[in-house]
């Protein structure tokens, strides 16, 4: 029976064809939200975000163009702060320290994490317990971690120097945080101590997610542990490792608490980071001027976003090339 016959059977109402209100036609889908619904869900978060994140960011940009020594009478000075920044030795030092820390230290974090994860993956006794124990430092606040390591690095009775002296390496003992050539490295180690567990857990999850067939195939191809690690496991885990690197990188660009409590940027600016320097210029110096530190924050904001975007792009580019 052709379709036409079917249509003909429908009883056509005598009323005019368009008896339904025209406005209903092609109206919004029942699944689409009304603006009221959307606002109920989104407005609280958006208002808060606008007021306490978006507006402050804009205001910091604006502040950077003003001299705010007297907060009630801001004086517009254009880009003067930005020009001043490029000749600010301490700022350049802070940038260098932070970048060194951000780019180099993540290797330490991620490598430690991967190594620890491999140990647990190899099937050692108490793996579950060890995983939980190693993760503990992640939960501790920077204040607590800083205090712990201040004491560990203490010249007279710190655990590190005691250990060195016990091994007869008295000459190596030093005030680790008090000397400008070791202070930054000492902070990096502390930071890695806190975060290694995090990287370990993520790597372990990625290891367990590896397709076991591929590992078995590698074994059939006569791969030893080292070869398997180098040719199979690490390449397969690349996305995870890169992701961890970026996370660690961003974390270190932001770091403040650790440095502030352990060294306050000293000695001789050897551990000064952008975060601590902004804080000092804003709140710890005698001159109370929020304009100049705002300019630093703006510059740093741009650098962090650009670096994150660059890393993201660079890693994505390489992914594309390989597959």
């Amino acid at each position: 029976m052709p379709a036409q016959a079917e249509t003909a059977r429908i009883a056509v109402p005598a009323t005019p064809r368009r008896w339904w209100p025209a406005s209903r036609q092609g109206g919004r889908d029942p699944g689409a939200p009304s603006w009221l619904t959307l606002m109920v869900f989104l407005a609280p978060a958006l208002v808060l975000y606008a007021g306490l994140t978006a507006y402050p960011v804009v205001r910091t940009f604006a502040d950077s163009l003003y001299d705010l020594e007297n907060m009630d009478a801001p004086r517009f000075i254009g880009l003067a702060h930005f020009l001043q920044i490029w000749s600010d030795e301490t700022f350049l030092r802070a940038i260098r320290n932070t970048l060194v820390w951000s780019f180099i230290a993540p290797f330490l974090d991620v490598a430690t994490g991967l190594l620890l994860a491999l140990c647990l993956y190899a099937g050692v006794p108490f793996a579950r317990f060890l995983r939980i124990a190693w993760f503990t430092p992640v939960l501790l606040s920077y204040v607590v971690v800083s205090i712990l390591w201040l004491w560990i690095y203490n010249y007279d009775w710190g655990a590190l120097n005691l250990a060195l002296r016990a091994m007869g390496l008295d000459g190596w003992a030093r005030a680790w945080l008090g000397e400008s050539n070791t202070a930054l490295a000492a902070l990096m180690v502390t930071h890695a101590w806190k975060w290694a567990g995090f990287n370990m857990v993520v790597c372990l999850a990625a290891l367990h997610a590896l397709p076991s067939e591929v590992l078995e195939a590698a074994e059939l191809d006569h791969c030893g542990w080292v070869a398997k690690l180098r040719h199979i496991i690490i390449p397969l885990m690349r996305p995870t490792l890169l992701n961890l690197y970026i996370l660690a990188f961003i974390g270190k660009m932001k770091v403040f608490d650790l440095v502030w409590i352990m060294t306050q940027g000293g000695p001789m600016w050897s551990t000064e980071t952008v975060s601590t320097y902004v804080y000092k210029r804003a709140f710890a110096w005698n001159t109370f001027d929020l304009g100049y530190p705002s300019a630093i924050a703006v510059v740093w904001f741009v650098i962090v976003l650009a670096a994150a975007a660059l890393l993201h792009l660079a890693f994505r580019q390489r992914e594309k090339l390989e597959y």
Partner: protein
Amino acid sequence: MKAQGWGDRLTGLLRRGPLLAVLVLYTLYTTLPFLWVGAMSLRTTAEISADHYGLPSPAHWGKFRAAWVDSNFAGYFWNSTVVVVTAVVVVTVLGAMAAHALARYKFPGNRLLYFILFSSIIFPPQIVLLSLFQILVNYDLYNTRIGLILVYVSLQLPLTVFILEAFFARIPQDLFEAARIDGYTDLQIFLRIVVPVGMPAIVTTVILNFVHLWNEYLFAVVLVSDEELRTLPVGIQRFMGDYFQDIGMIATGVMIAVIPVIVVYAFFSEKLIQGMTAGAVK
């Protein structure tokens, strides 16, 4: 046969020797500092100065009472609890609602909003720190709990929305349509379907936000100066004078700050680990 079995086991042990050594050493490396502070928290500063690595005998449990009452750790603890719990509750509610809207509804600007929120996760804190200080001063919120709570909510909002959106978006669309045929309004769908189904992710963000905020230092130190309102991380630091450290009291304070986290961790270790690594594990 037997001899060979022993030999195998011996070579196995030798081969695994380095591995086991790494395990033991690293476990000591992560736990010893903590045990050390635990021991110091039960010893007086005088005892500690005499021998920094002594065992707590006799154990001065009274130090905890002293810290709690005389050194105002009760106050710090209370401030931390009020501020962090309120902020976590608020950020969870706001974040879940926003995440639901972004995950479920198509509307112009949806992805733009998501991208803006997402990028905020990597903002360095300085970009808002200085102006938040001014804004709170302007609106008489500087040095108030409510001011710090609001800032904490805004700090954790992007990450909360990010994690919840990813989870909510995986709830099948059919479920919502079934609910609509059953007569649910948009708000009821959120409360009766999305929240219960998304509970694992919500718990994850609660844990993550709680730990982050419980440990937060920078904003707490900048936005609150009143001794009466200080939170734990700032409170402990008060005992770190430039020339004199009351090591015994600091150690006790550290334990007071850490014990709640450790207790929670002891009971919900898997959930905490999951929560803290959410977003990094794919």
